[in-house]
């Protein structure tokens, strides 16, 4: 398995790139702190803030790495090595998830400090955060490869991520919205992440039970990985 050396390389090369730091670390933390300052007790916002952190951290990291690598042709180093497209995609998804786990763990620690009630289930919370990071990372890899000109990746990413913050119920409960709005949210992994974490952190959910939301995040991870491999086949 060549996945481990690729992960180590990615962390050394891209962890401190402006793209990873600004949208991936500073934005989610500042965003979370702003909500904490505004609301004080933030139990009902905790699932949303942790999900938003995971979403922005993973996608920013993988996008930053793939934009650099596609433009500087260092990506072709991986393509020239005797490894499969699947291994390349897996490594990219895993390292994005790893960066996302770090950022969402920081967010969770901060948010937890201001929560009034105790966490409903730690094991489910950790599982939920892990699956969410994997699904978001795979989504980010797919978008970073599907956008034809790498210069436009960050823009497209925001076109997708920012609306996802609202359609997922991260900011306001899904029960407040009409059915068609919820339906839009169901095609993104963000909704499943918010719902799963709502259950694991607070002990209730809005519309999707954890029995569905958790496996669906795994399913979306695999789906976006397959789509990414297909993108590579088309590109090269």
């Amino acid at each position, binding site marked *: 398995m060549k996945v481990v*050396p690729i992960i180590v390389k990615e962390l050394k090369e891209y962890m401190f790139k402006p793209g990873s730091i600004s949208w991936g670390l500073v934005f989610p933390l500042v965003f979370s702190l702003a909500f904490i300052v505004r609301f004080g007790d933030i139990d009902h916002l905790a699932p949303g803030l942790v999900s938003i952190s995971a979403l922005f951290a993973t996608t920013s990291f993988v996008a930053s790495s793939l934009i650099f690598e596609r433009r500087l*042709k*260092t990506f072709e*180093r991986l393509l*020239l*090595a005797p490894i499969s497209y699947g291994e390349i995609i897996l490594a990219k998804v895993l390292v994005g998830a790893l960066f996302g786990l770090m950022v969402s763990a920081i967010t969770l620690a901060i948010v937890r400090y201001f929560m009034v009630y105790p966490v409903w289930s730690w094991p489910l919370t950790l599982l939920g955060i892990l699956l969410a990071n994997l699904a978001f990372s795979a989504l980010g890899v797919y978008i970073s490869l599907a956008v034809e000109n790498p210069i436009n990746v960050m823009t497209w990413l925001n076109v997708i991520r920012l609306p996802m913050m609202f359609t997922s119920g991260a900011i306001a409960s899904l029960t407040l919205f009409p059915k068609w709005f919820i339906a839009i949210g169901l095609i993104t992994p963000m909704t499943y992440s918010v719902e799963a974490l709502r259950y694991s952190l607070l002990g209730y959910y809005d519309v999707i039970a954890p029995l569905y939301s958790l496996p669906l995040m795994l399913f979306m991870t695999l789906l976006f990985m397959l789509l990414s491999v297909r993108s590579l086949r088309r590109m090269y």
Partner: protein
Amino acid sequence: MKAVIEAKNLTKRYGDFTAVNGISFEVKPGEIFGFLGPNGAGKTTTVRMLSTLTSITEGEAYVNGHDVRRERKAVKKTIGVVQDVSNLYDELTVEENLRFLAKLYDAPLENVSRLIKDFNLPAKKKFGKLSSGYKRRTAIVAALIHEPPVLFLDEPTVALDVQSANLVRNMIQLLNKEGKTIFLTTHNMTEAETLPHRIAIINRGKIVAIGKRNELRKLVGKGVKVRFRVEPLSNRFLRFLEPYSPKPDGETLVVMVEDPDTFLEEFWGLKRELGFRVLHLSTELPSIEEVFLQLTDSNEDGERPCACGGCPL
């Protein structure tokens, strides 16, 4: 001897545009094979097809006996590729870059320290901080990490200063002496005159000439180029020159002669008879640059110079 690289009717199309148009050639073991062509001729596209980086639209290619279309992994293991940019990771040191690649290729980690020593690379310096000369040398060394028998070098000296370019050329020669077969694309004529054992010239996606240097020289005219300057130029002397169709070049006249002995005997005979002064006299072989210029055109402007060589218009 069995060919190391074999292309049969190799073609690459991007939509309606044909970048490489049915080229066929063989590269023999131990050879430096020069692939010459102007900008946009299809050199990089050919390297990308042969090294599995882009799909082959039509035709076949074999590298080290492996079908490039079907046995990509086997091909990748036996080739080292130096692309037209020095693409390594900026934030990693030279050593970290090489160690990473060694792991990707399952190559022994001893290769890293050996190569760093042999090629005198600054192991602890970040790749992004190196000069372009060192970057290119590191990129070449990176292609050697898994000890491949075949190297593809895509314009390895482009944008380097004279000293760095010479170092890279020496490296290429050294690697070839060690037994590596080298596919070298270039539009640098110094390189074409010195490095390759055989040369293919590609123009607008098609191979227009292929052979040893001396075989290619014959394509611009048979024999030897004689250059001279005499004073005064008499009518009698010009009549003698007429069958050779002399061409002015600066202050000198140039003729192509098949049999320089006979020409020079007559030349000296006339000098004794007419008493003109010889200010310059030299002979030379046609250069690869002349062959190149005659067989190719700039692919950018779309104008093709007249093929007849010297139209009265």
